[in-house]
């Protein structure tokens, strides 16, 4: 009885109802897709496919001239490209790794019984709400090597703070730190939702069995909050690979080109009016991100635990 509905049932709907008053139609009907599919297809898929065509042209927004793969060739000849790719991967790995780990830790902390957790939840989530412009300016000021509060605080303890955003070797890392600051609240929220979704009975049963905190974490919370983990990993990885807003508002890809990522390279081309070239760049970025994320989602889905 418990297995009939679990199997893929594409045939259930095609079998015409003949004297069977129940289960004549699947409870998972295809038309549930319809409204979303219409909106998504018309307003996202169609324009995106149209833009793929423009990636093959020299597009001034007013005229377009077909040049085949010329844009792609030109994109790969971009001088800052290698650095851009390296920066992109480093940035994505750092930010998503930190968000996953910190998000889980904070999620656990904020769903436990500690004092002040209501305030903590609000305060940790607050950065997610502030516009990137505001965050960018705020941290540029705080990270000022001579006047900023961060170096001033470090100076009190006797440490000579570095030039966070002006030293070419650490500019990108500083922006990554701010990105984590801004995004960890979201990861925490998703983790909290995941932890909260675990039924109470499991906790009680585990404790009755004498499970300590670590066993509780490893064998109960981690696997059963897997939906949260996989979502956070996927979202933060995609976000990190595509990240642009914060980097642009904090360093503009500088000093010079040292904190350029692919998204900012594309944006500069867009600003300069190379619309075909920047669309080609987006296509390349899309392929690169998909190549990384798609196998990852398959891997994560396989480890999913069904109740």
């Amino acid at each position, binding site marked *: 009885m418990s297995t009939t509905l679990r199997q893929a049932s594409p045939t259930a709907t095609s079998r015409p109802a003949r004297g069977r008053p129940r289960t004549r139609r699947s409870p998972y009907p295809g038309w549930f897709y319809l409204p979303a599919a219409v909106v998504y297809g018309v307003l996202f898929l169609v324009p995106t496919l149209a833009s793929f065509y423009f990636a093959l042209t*020299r597009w*001034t*927004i*007013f*005229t377009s*001239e077909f040049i085949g793969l010329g844009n792609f060739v*030109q994109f790969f000849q971009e*001088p*800052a490209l290698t650095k851009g790719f390296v920066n992109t991967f480093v940035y994505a790995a750092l930010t998503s790794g930190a968000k996953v780990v910190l998000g889980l830790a904070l999620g656990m902390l904020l769903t436990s019984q500690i004092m002040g957790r209501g305030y903590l939840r609000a305060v940790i989530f607050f950065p997610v709400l502030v516009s990137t412009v505001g965050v960018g300016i705020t941290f*540029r000021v705080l990270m*000022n*090597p*001579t006047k900023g509060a961060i170096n001033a605080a470090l100076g009190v303890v006797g440490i000579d703070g570095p*030039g966070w*955003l*002006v030293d*070419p070797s650490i500019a990108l890392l500083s922006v990554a730190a701010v990105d984590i600051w801004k995004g960890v609240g979201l990861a925490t929220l998703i983790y909290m939702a995941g932890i909260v979704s675990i039924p109470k009975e499991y906790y009680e049963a585990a404790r009755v069995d004498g499970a300590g905190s670590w066993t509780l974490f490893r064998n109960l919370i981690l696997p059963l909050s897997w939906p949260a983990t996989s979502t956070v990993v996927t979202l933060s990885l995609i976000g990190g690979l595509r990240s642009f807003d914060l980097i642009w508002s904090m360093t*503009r*890809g*500088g*000093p*010079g*080109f*040292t904190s350029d990522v692919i998204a900012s390279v594309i944006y*500069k*081309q*867009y*600003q*300069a*009016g*190379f619309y075909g*070239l920047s669309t080609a760049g987006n296509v390349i970025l899309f392929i690169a991100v998909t190549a990384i994320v798609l196998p990852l989602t398959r891997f994560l889905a396989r480890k999913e635990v069904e109740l």
Partner: protein
Amino acid sequence: MKLSTRSPRWLALAAVLVVGPVAGCSAGSLGSSEEESGGGTTITWLTGVDETAQATAEAIVAAFEDANPDITVKLDGKPAGGEGDNLVKTRLQTGTMPDVFDYNSGSLFQQIAPANNLAPLDDSVVGAVDDTFFPQVSVDSTVYGVPYGTAFGGGVMYNKKVFDQLGLTVPTTWAEFMSNSEVIKAAGIAPVIQTYQDTWTSQLFVLGDFHNVAAVQPTWAEDYTANQAEYATDPVAMAGFQHLQDVHDAGYENADYASTKLEDGMRQLAAGTGAMYPMLSANITTLQSVAPEAVADIGFFALPGDDAASNGLTAWFPNAVYIAKTTEGEALEASKKLLAFIASPEGCEAFGSASDPTGPYLVEGCELPADVPPVTKDVQTYFDEDKQSPALEFLSPVKGPNLEQITVEIGSGIRSAADGAALYDEDVEKQAQQLGLEGW
């Protein structure tokens, strides 16, 4: 199993979906404080949404509406900077541009396909405009725009008090510039202010030097457009890049050049902790806002080249106001009247009442008032003595997108001038190809 009641949810959902669009439609009417004048024409002017731009436009509109009571002009806003440029191009392309809008002149004007998107203007509108401005807003011999604002110069703002104290005079050759800097540095003041947190300010040494290039090689701009000239192999053209490197290598920059913004640079200049600031004269507005008490102490001189005799100012043309091609009938007539007003002495006066002039007007009959800041007076002198020529962007459509980053690298010592110039030459290739120029 608890089942929460669902019907209120459906009801709420339905209510929202009905109320939403209706509310959205009516929200727009909240803010309009203007009333439709009975039987009059209303046109819309898309201008910058920031305070300065709005204040200036409002002053002009107020004066215009006084002189033309049957026309009402509403203002629409676009973001400043690159986002606004994209918006202009998008709205033109999709045929949704308001009646009138202002935008750059020169090569950027050429990029918005004027013949397809803009309404041509006749003599009744542009009659009073200075001849030198026409090439910047025309395709062949059809004129499309009138100047909005004043011309301005790219050069060096300097603190006159510091110069007086140290007994220095305005340099007319690069050698003098450097020796002045040595004296200033010895006095414990930063000779040259650089502000790389606003990357565009790093370009002045290169862009502001063009007058000196054109003085030696008058056809350089045309050769550049035809890919017959480039920066890396031409020492005269590369001088701008080289100067930037020299200034960095000699340690003449302010210590915090990498982490200061435009406003900080202005403050240092005003306070006298920095002596010279390569800058556009249009940014006198920033100085007025940040350190109004010091405006009388700041002067302006053109970037010097090697030859004192050919020393002169690299000048920027002002933006222009255009009419969209989709404007027709009464709206078109009203828009033309507005443009004619802007290009008239009354228009200049209205402009000057809200926004300080930063150089000469390009409209006949428009004079600068006597109380303009010294920076503006100095710029005007170069125009009066005819010691100025247009910046490269007004003579050639070729400009690469990465110049500011390259100049930041040179000014920070990350890259040499020779490498930077070569890199920029590569950069402009993309732009030239994008424009379909011959020879690239």
